[in-house]
C-alpha cells in the first residue's frame, strides 16, 4: 500500500521540483516494475547466487569447517574429468539416458496429440474420460512416482502368468497387448528390426507414456479449443473429409503448441525423478564427497539437454505455422 501512496503523490513532488510530471506511459512502466518486483528481487538475491555457486562448486572441493562454515578449494576441471573418465557408470548412463530421451519425445508428443483430439470430440462420458486421463498430472508425480519405480506388487498383480506364450518370455507389468503377439504380427511384414523393437518397447511402456503426457494433453486440448469453429464449418461446406481437415487445418493451427510441448516434454523428462541420469546423479550426491561431483555431472547433463532442445526447437520452428503475429 505504500507503493500506491508513492504513485499518487509523485505528480505533486514533481511539481515542487519544477519538473514535468511523469507521462502515463512512464507511470505504467513504473507500475509494471512494481508488479514484477518480487521476481526480480528473488532472482537477484536468491537465484543468481545459487546458479553462480552451483557452477563454482563444480570446480571446487568442499570441506565443512568446525564452528559453522565451509571451505572451498579450487580444483579446476578435476570434477569434470573425474565424472567423465574416473567414474565408471556416468558416461554409459548419460548416453543411455539421452538415447531414451530422444526416443521418448516423438512417442509422447504424438500420443498426447492423438488423445487430445479424441478427448476433444463430443461423446458420451467425455467428462468422465477427461477426469480419468488427467489423474496422472496430479497424482503420479514426485513421491508416488518414486514409490512406483520399483514396485514388485504391481508387477506381480498385473502379470498374466496364467497365459504362457511358450516362448519362455514372461509378461511384465502393465502390458495391454503381449509384446510377443505384436512381434508375430510384424514378423511377416517387411519392416526394420529397430522399428519393431521401438514399437514393442512403446507398447510395453504405455503406462509410463500415459503418465508422462498429462500436461501435454491439457495444452493440446486448450489449443484445440482455441481454433475457431468457423474454419471447420467452411471446410465442411467445401467438402473436405475429416482426415483432410485434420492435416490441413488442425495440425497447422496447433503447430506452435507442438513446439511448446516438445520442449516441455524434454524439460519434464529431464527433471523427473525416474530419469536414469538424474537418479544416478542423486545417488552420487548422497554418497560421501560426491556432492561437488554431482554438481559437475548435472551441469554437463544440462548443457547436453540444452543442445538437444535447441536442435529440436530449431528444426520444428521451421515447420511451425503462426496464424497471427504477437500483439
Amino acid at each position: 500500500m505504500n507503493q500506491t501512496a508513492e504513485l499518487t503523490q509523485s505528480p505533486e513532488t514533481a511539481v515542487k521540483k519544477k519538473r514535468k510530471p511523469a507521462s502515463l506511459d512512464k507511470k505504467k512502466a513504473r507500475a509494471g516494475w512494481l508488479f514484477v518486483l518480487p521476481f526480480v528481487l528473488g532472482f537477484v538475491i536468491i537465484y543468481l547466487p545459487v546458479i553462480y555457486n552451483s557452477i563454482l562448486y563444480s570446480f571446487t572441493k568442499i570441506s565443512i569447517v568446525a564452528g559453522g562454515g565451509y571451505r572451498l578449494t579450487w580444483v579446476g576441471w578435476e570434477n569434470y574429468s573425474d565424472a567423465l573418465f574416473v567414474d565408471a557408470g556416468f558416461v554409459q548412463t548419460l548416453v543411455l539416458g539421452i538415447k531414451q530421451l530422444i526416443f521418448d519425445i516423438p512417442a509422447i508428443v504424438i500420443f498426447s496429440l492423438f488423445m487430445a483430439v479424441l478427448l476433444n470430440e463430443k461423446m458420451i462420458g467425455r467428462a468422465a474420460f477427461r477426469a480419468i486421463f488427467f489423474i496422472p498430472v496430479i497424482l503420479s508425480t514426485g513421491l508416488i512416482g518414486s514409490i512406483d519405480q520399483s514396485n514388485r506388487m504391481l508387477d506381480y498383480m498385473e502379470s498374466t502368468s496364467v497365459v504362457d506364450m511358450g516362448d519362455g518370455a514372461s509378461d511384465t507389468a502393465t502390458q495391454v497387448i503381449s509384446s510377443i503377439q505384436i512381434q508375430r504380427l510384424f514378423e511377416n511384414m517387411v519392416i526394420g528390426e529397430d522399428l519393431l523393437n521401438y514399437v514393442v518397447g512403446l507398447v510395453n511402456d504405455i503406462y509410463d507414456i500415459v503418465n508422462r503426457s498429462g500436461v501435454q494433453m491439457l495444452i493440446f486440448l486448450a489449443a484445440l479449443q482455441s481454433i475457431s469453429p468457423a474454419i471447420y464449418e467452411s471446410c465442411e461446406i467445401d467438402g473436405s473429409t475429416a482426415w483432410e481437415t485434420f492435416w490441413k487445418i488442425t495440425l497447422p493451427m496447433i503447430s506452435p503448441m507442438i513446439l511448446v510441448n516438445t520442449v516441455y516434454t524434454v524439460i519434464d523428462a529431464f527433471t523427473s525423478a525416474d530419469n536414469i541420469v538424474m537418479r544416478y546423479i542423486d545417488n552420487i550426491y548422497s554418497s560421501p564427497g560426491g556432492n561437488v561431483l554431482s554438481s559437475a555431472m548435472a551441469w554437463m547433463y544440462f548443457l547436453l539437454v540444452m543442445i538437444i532442445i535447441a536442435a529440436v526447437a530449431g528444426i520444428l520452428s521451421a515447420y511451425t505455422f503462426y496464424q497471427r503475429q504477437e500483439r
Partner: protein
Amino acid sequence: MNAQAQPATKVMKETKNKIRVDFERTSRWERFRIKYLNGHFIVMTVWWLFRFVLLVGLSYVILMPFLSKIAGSFMSPEDFVDVTVKYIPKYPTLDTYRAIIEESGYWEAFANTFILSLGCGVVQTFICSVIGYGFAKFKFKGSGILFLLVVMTMVIPHNTLELSLFMEFRYFDIFGIFRLLGGGVTADIELISFTSLNLNNTYWPLAILSLTGLAYRNGLYIFMMRQFYRGVPDELEESAYLDGCGVFKTFFRIIIPLSVPMMVTIFLFAFCWQWTDNFYTRVFFTSTGMKLMPDIIMVPRQLSTDFAGGDLYASAIQNTCGLLIIAPLIIVYIFGQRFLIQGIERSGLVG
C-alpha cells in the same frame, strides 16, 4: 418433405374439418438402407467403437495401478502366500493401515504437509498472478528479457542446483550483510551474534522461494497467468482508471475477482505438486526435525515381512503408504478437476 415431393400424394376430404392425406411411403427397408447402410454411418460407427475401446483400455491402464494398490492394502500376509489370491483378498484386514498410522506418525506428517502445501499454494498463486499481470499488461524496458529469465527458471531443473540451494539456505546471507554485521569480514565490528542463518528444517526456504516466484514450476504458473491476463480486454482497466482507480486498486478490485477460476487452477497445481514433492523436502528438511509426508514411507515394525511372500508384502505396505499420502489429494481432485480442465481451456493458454 417427402410427401410434397411425391406426385402420388392424394389429399382427400373426409369430413368438414378433417382431411386424409394418402401417399406412398418409402418402404421400411429403403428408409433403413438410406439411413444406416451408407459409408458415412459405417465409418462413424467403426470410429465410435474404436474410440470407445481405446479410451476404456487406456482408462484401465491408468486406473489399474490404483485399484491393485487398494486391493493390496487390504491383504493380510496369508494372502500373499496363497497363489490363488490375486485381487480380492481372502482374509481382508485393516492391519496395514492401522500399523502405518500408529507407527509412522501419519497425522503429524499430515498436519505439517497440509500447512506447508496450503501456505505454498496460496502464496504462489497470489505472487504468480501479480507477476503474470505485470508481464501481461505493462510495457516497460527490459520486460522481454525479464520474461526470458522466467522461462529460464522453468528450464533449468532445480536438481542441477541441489547442492547450491542447500548451501544457500544452510548459510543464508543477503549479499554478505549478515557476514559484515556479524564480524565475519573484520573482527572488530560485531553487531549481530551470527554470521549466517541456518534456515534448513524450517518453512523459510520454501516461503522465500514461493514469495519470489522461484519455487517448483512457478515459471509455468507465471506463464499461464500471463497468457490469461493478455486475454482480458484493456478497456476494463481503462474504464477503472477513468473512474479514478489506481493501478493497484484496479488490480485488487477488478482483475483479481475476474481471475478466480484461473487462480483456482493454479492453486490446485501448486497444492498437489507441493504435497507429493520429494525434492524440496529432501533438500531443505534434512534431519528428522519435522515430519513430512516422505518420512512416512516405511515398513512398520509390528508387521513382519519375514516369510516367503515377504517382499511382496513389503511392497504392498509401501503402496499403502503411498495411498495414505494421496488420499487427501484424491478428494481434492474429485472436487477440483472441473476447474483444472475448464481453467486451462478458458485461459487461452494458446494465443
